């Protein structure tokens, strides 16, 4: 026990560990976050993987990625609240993304926004970043894109529905998601 505390303390002295937990105000927001990742982030990753040598398309996907993580930030940080979609990119570049602990400058740098890149480098950069974002969400996200995926999604939703009940939260938000499916 003492050994363990010692190790933790030593680790802490070197570098603050970043969190790999998602802290939301309630279950509805947590589900919304994962739902967004399922619907949009997976699609985005697929688009990036399928860029097929089209550099301009990839550059646009980079902007989409920034807008997307800003939307996620707005779900988690209700004091920020997702800004209007037409403001998302400028807002993110200026204010950064809180749940990723990235300032605007760090975001720009991580996505290599001001560097002239060839397609392979840009594709790799965007994929690494996207997988890193996914990795910040604990758990195995069902793959909504595959034939199998729909079943897994429904299973997840049933689980969330039951949990909602136990946590004393309204299940209304899930109905809309089911309709979308």
């Amino acid at each position, binding site marked *: 026990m003492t050994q363990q505390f010692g190790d933790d303390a030593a680790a802490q002295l070197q570098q603050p560990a970043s969190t790999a937990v998602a802290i939301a105000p309630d279950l509805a927001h947590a589900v919304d976050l994962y739902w967004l990742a399922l619907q949009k982030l997976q699609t985005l990753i*697929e*688009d990036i*993987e*399928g*860029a*097929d040598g*089209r550099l*301009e*398309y990839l*550059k*646009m*996907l980079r*902007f*989409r990625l920034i807008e997307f993580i800003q939307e996620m930030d707005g779900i988690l940080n209700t004091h920020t*609240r997702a*800004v*209007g979609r*037409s*403001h998302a*990119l*400028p*807002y*993110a*570049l*200026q204010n950064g993304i809180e749940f990723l602990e990235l300032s*605007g*400058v760090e975001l*720009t740098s991580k996505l290599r926004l*001001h560097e002239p890149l060839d397609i392979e480098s840009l594709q790799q950069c965007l994929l690494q970043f996207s997988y890193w974002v996914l990795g910040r969400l604990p758990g195995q996200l069902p793959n909504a*894109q595959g*034939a199998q995926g729909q079943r897994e999604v429904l299973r997840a939703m049933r689980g969330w529905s039951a949990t909602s009940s136990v946590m004393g939260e309204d299940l209304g938000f899930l109905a809309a998601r089911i309709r979308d499916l």
Partner: protein
Amino acid sequence: MIFAEDTERFSHVAEDRARRNTIAFMEHQGLDRQEIEALAARIHPGQCTIYFVSTIPAGLAGSKSDVDVILVPDSASGSDAVSNMMFHRDRRIGAKVILATEIAHALDRLREFSSHSLLGRCSDVQTSHSPGTIKWEDLTRLVNGLSFAQGATYLPALPDIARYATACALAKYRQQRFAAKLADRSNAVDALFGYRLNAVISAMDALMSACGRIMSNSKWTLQRWQQFEADPLTDAARSLHLLISQTWNSVLQSPRADSRTLTLLDERFDEMTATEQKPFRHRLRPLSSAICREFLPGALSIKSNGHVAIVPSNFLDRLASIDMRDPPADLSRTEAASILRLWQLEMLETVDETQEHRQ
């Protein structure tokens, strides 16, 4: 408003291009067009015309792209639009049924819009609320869609769609320009860069739409711009194309620099629409659903869109006096930052006033 000659030229080649692109895609990707059509046809009991839509006829589809088709039933029977996802040789096929009556209605409404003046506005000319009941995305897909049996049935609606799409893109452009000016005044240099990027991307969309090249999904804009570069254009369209390209490069190279090319672009777009619309003043104001009450002497509370903002009591008067096109020289850094923040949080909306109309 639109570049009529460029749009017409494009409409002459559009059907052929769509056909060639679709055939090439199928061959390249080892897919069987007729099998796909047969598969899609299963989602509706009656006879349908099957349109290939979206990235495939547009020549944008890649190795992982879905095959998107829209089915238009021959007879009026049947249910609302049904969406289905199927698989053919590991490729996702997205098929949707849309009724001919709904399409006709939407195209009629679109023609009406065309003759009103949407132009010169900056308030949201909504593309998410399409004329009629079908989604804007589906309408644009149909106009550019190709049936191997019937051809490009809805292509004649291209000029109407082009006008609407151009008006929408110009409205976005203006909003982004106004936001950029606020960001500049408040010294939010990174936001300024972002707004400028957005503005020029909207400008690209506006020009391409004005030349009949329509695509509702903006993720393709930069790629389409590259394709567009190689197309033959009239002098007028070409000159605007050059200006926009120059502006894009200058924004990328010097994100924070004084942008003369953007001002030039503002003027060019104003010229384009000048003959067709009255000049507007553009303002920001609280949403009509907002509740505004005195908070303390000297301070106002505004409850709107899930937030409560406490602002100086002269905030609304100040806002009413500002023409977004031309923010006053005495607009302070703090004022600009506050207005921008409230706008970003969607507590404010833009409004267009004709010169004669005072609110």
